């Protein structure tokens, strides 16, 4: 692994700056990804929060959708938060009919699952594998309705009624969160991404 891994942040729309700042603080070299050629040589990728309908459309018009999907299929380590999680899902509920997703992780995700902005909330939750609880900011957030075999559920949230819903999941090199670790100054999910980047580089060497 090189001293400073090259990590892309999809920069078509959303809170790109926050993710870039976290990655930068962890010593990664950050590249804004807006065109297919920006994928060249990436060792990891972040799909940020934003509007998933807008991002889906811009992924199509920019020509990124196909090439980015190929990178994911080839095992590029990726972290998706909120809209990023939606884009990585196998299936999206309550989305637009023409909404595209990469199917990089075998989960079914429901958009705006907690309701409108008045239902957005902050909470503290346990994440499997992390020593301390994580402070999580949920903004018009999705949650995971169902997971396929081979998907690890690392954290759940339970509403006042109903069953616990997965909000952090991992399958292979794909890590997703329904909330925004990049907004609460907690870099541990980004560290997990960079760990995978390092492992992949080591196994390739």
């Amino acid at each position, binding site marked *: 692994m090189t001293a400073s891994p090259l990590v892309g942040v999809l920069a078509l729309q959303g*809170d790109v700056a926050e993710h870039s700042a976290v990655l930068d603080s962890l010593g990664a070299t950050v590249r804004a990804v*807006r065109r297919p050629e920006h994928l060249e040589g990436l060792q990891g990728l972040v799909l940020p929060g934003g*509007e998933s309908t807008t991002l889906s459309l811009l992924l199509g018009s*920019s020509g990124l959708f196909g090439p980015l999907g190929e990178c994911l299929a080839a095992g590029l380590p990726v972290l998706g938060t909120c809209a990023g999680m939606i884009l990585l899902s196998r299936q999206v509920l309550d989305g637009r009919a023409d909404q595209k997703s990469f199917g990089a992780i075998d989960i079914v995700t429901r958009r705006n699952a907690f309701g409108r*902005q008045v239902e*957005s909330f902050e*909470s503290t939750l346990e994440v499997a594998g992390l020593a301390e609880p994580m402070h999580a900011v*949920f903004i018009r957030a999705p949650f995971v309705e169902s997971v396929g075999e081979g998907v690890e559920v690392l954290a759940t*949230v339970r509403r006042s009624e109903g069953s*616990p819903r997965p909000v952090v999941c991992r399958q292979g090199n794909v890590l997703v969160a329904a909330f925004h670790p990049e907004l609460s100054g907690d870099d541990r999910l980004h560290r997990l991404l960079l760990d995978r980047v390092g492992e992949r580089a080591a196994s390739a060497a």
Partner: protein
Amino acid sequence: MTSTSEANGAASGERGTVRVKRGLAEMLRGGVIMDVVTAEQAKIAEDAGAVSVMALERVPADIRREGGVARMSDPALIGAIQEAVTIPVMAKVRIGHFAEAQILQVLEVDYIDESEVLTPADEAYHIDKWAFSVPFVCGATNLGEALRRISEGAAMIRSKGEAGTGNVVEAVRHLRSILGDIKKIQTADSAERYGWAKQLQAPIDLVEEVARTGRLPVPLFCAGGLATPADATLVMQLGAEAVFVGSGIFKSEDPARRARAIVEATAHYQDAEIVAKVSRGLGAAMPGEEIATLDVKLAERGW
């Protein structure tokens, strides 16, 4: 703040916090927020890639032409637009009209715009926005106005521009004024920062924060007079973090196409090649007006 959710059956969730309010604005960055007056227009906006729509009864160009008192929209119209789209829905209230804002909070709009485009309801006071769990966006023509609105609880600022004109000159003036003063404050010493607070009529702690971070404490978007993809990329390059397009889309010849072009241009604002491509053959933009010929300057409302 109410407890609404339990994480792993243990911790409780807090709604309406500063982080949650400003957080939604952060998610809209790099996007286009479009004025719509019907559910059909809202669908067109969403299809074109809008990150959010602003539900209102008349676009600013019509308010300007028809005159009369402009008020909060009918809740039935706002409800129909909320039903039509999956993206966040914003709506406007008159400056100082906290009762209209209470209604919009009950309707669960995602952002409330305390807007100079509507006829002001209070000549002395803006709304105490801390009292609401729905976030607010407010207009500003300069840094002092922006910081006063933030001190009242605004979670997003938009430079005002001159709505309904299709003329970007005022948007540029206001954006340059806000960002120019931020740059100056960054080089001011501690004594000068007190002078800035006095001159801007803004709280010293917000002036100190701007000096330290080099940006507003909340996202800064741009509004008022944008009509073309190039207008959007102009203000994004000047430092806006997202754009509002009002009359510019649905007063143009081919709204769907223009909306889509402005979305793509905003996303690729640093890439003139893409902006050139999406700007081709969009049909006529809204006609637009010279600022000097206006009877009413909306940007002068609010203080």
